[in-house]
């Protein structure tokens, strides 16, 4: 018995070492490209030619970042921020109210409404690209913030409503009922009682939407062609096309600049994001 236990614990120890090694290797694969990019953004052109790619920068060279911000990047940042903030606010307000109504109020067509939002998950963006483009060009909405905000909100709604619905399913009705008995109206109960208790789910939906909006490519590529209205993602692409082909430093700097805001959000709120993604996927 003694020997057997020893054998098992030895086997387990070997297994643990193997797992640790594999996980380190995976870490390298998933994180190194980004680290390499950030290091690369701090190298001069000469360093790229003379030393191997994986070498660390000899000393920190910020010229690449200067080049990036001399380009239009400041403007791209403002565009992306405005769009992301509006998308987040509108999506959170609308989807929380829709989900609250569906799960707590009684009205006709409630079930149909839930299905309607569930169906939204199935709609691929390809179907709406052409009609939206043609409509926008008729009503002069191309190259505006709204041309991106509207489809992003629409495509974000189904998933956000699902998340809020899952949250409200476990929401205690007693508080709302007590408020109703005390003569509190539905809208007042919603803003005063329900919203403060939704803090976590609101953060989850908001971070998810913010990151998706920041990274969104196909709508902006289709609806925006003036340089002034480009988002960072589009700006990055056009910047690389113009200057990045020979000199890699500025390209890496531009990539880093566009990725850093999402990294910061993710660093602080990854817990909420991951919760939202697993929840939504298992349900949907």
């Amino acid at each position, binding site marked *: 018995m003694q020997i057997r236990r020893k054998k098992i614990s030895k086997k387990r120890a070997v*297994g*643990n070492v193997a*797992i*640790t090694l*594999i*996980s380190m290797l*995976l*870490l390298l694969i*998933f*994180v190194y*490209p*980004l680290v*390499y*990019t950030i290091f*690369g953004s701090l190298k001069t052109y000469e360093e*790229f*030619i003379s030393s*191997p*790619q*994986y070498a660390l920068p000899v000393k920190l060279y910020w010229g690449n970042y200067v080049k990036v911000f001399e380009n239009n990047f400041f403007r791209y940042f403002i565009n992306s921020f405005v769009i992301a903030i509006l998308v987040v606010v509108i999506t959170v307000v609308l989807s929380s109210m829709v989900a609250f109504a569906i799960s707590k109020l009684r009205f006709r067509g409630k079930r149909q409404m839930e299905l309607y939002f569930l169906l939204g998950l*199935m*709609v*691929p*963006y*390809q*179907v709406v*690209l*052409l*009609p939206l*483009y*043609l409509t926008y060009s008729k009503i002069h909405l191309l190259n505006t913030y709204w041309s991106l905000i509207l489809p992003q909100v629409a495509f974000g709604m189904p998933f956000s409503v699902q998340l809020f619905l899952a949250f409200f399913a476990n929401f205690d009705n007693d508080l709302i009922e007590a408020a109703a008995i005390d003569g509190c109206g539905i809208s007042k109960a919603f803003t005063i009682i329900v919203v403060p208790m939704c803090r976590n789910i609101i953060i989850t939906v908001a971070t998810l939407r913010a*990151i998706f909006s*920041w*990274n969104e*490519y*196909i709508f902006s590529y*289709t609806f925006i062609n003036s340089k002034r209205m480009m988002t960072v*993602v*589009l700006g*990055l*692409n056009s910047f*690389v096309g113009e200057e*990045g082909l020979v000199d*890699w430093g500025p*390209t*890496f700097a531009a*990539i880093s600049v*566009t*990725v850093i805001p*999402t*990294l910061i959000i*993710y660093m602080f709120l*990854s817990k909420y*994001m*991951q919760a939202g*993604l*697993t929840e939504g*996927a*298992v349900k*949907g």
Partner: protein
Amino acid sequence: MWQSVGHTINLSVWQVVLQVGGGLVLAVILSRMVVFKRVFQTLYYLPVIISSVALCQMFKKIFAVMPPGLFNQLLSAIRPEWIHLEWLTNIKTSLGMVIFTTGYKNVAVYMLIFYSALLTVPHSLTEAARIDGAGSWQIFRKITLPHLKPAMIANVILVMNGSLRSYDIPVLLTAGGPVNTSQTQALYMYKQAFTSMKYGYGSALAMFIVFESLLFAILIQLYSVRSKGE
């Protein structure tokens, strides 16, 4: 057109292998990890939050030939002439690179879903099996996998749906080239609609993609219902 549909199906099948299979493997590794689980989980997830534009620009540089990128420089340590290998501009590898990049970007999503499903496998069951003398592999096959089945089906549907309409990574990484070897149906649809201005044909292609996605979702559902009955 059928060529791009073929590429898309090829890509989607590979995505199921890479993202669902890879995600499952990653989740199991994650669940076996002893220390810093949370840190690893958070870091594996990084490629998901990076925009596909940034990721593709990174990969374009890493797999570059002129001047030699990171990957080829590492390869040249094994064999000096490998420094000239082409990846993104090679007819034979372009679709493979698109497949790899798409899988790389998304695998962590399915890792997370499998991981949270793994946590729901009752500990008492695996413990009982272990006492009865079942090996780790047996426990995994007979107890863990059946528990993961709902998550598995959901994941396959999600991956199929995502891959059938994949546009970003093909267009950004290889622009569908060289000579259309990595063109997907969504890319073909986009080119027809917006570059050639064939609005009607483009819309028809878009509807084709919708019905194709629906068809696959229904087929997977049917298959899962049938195998449950057996």
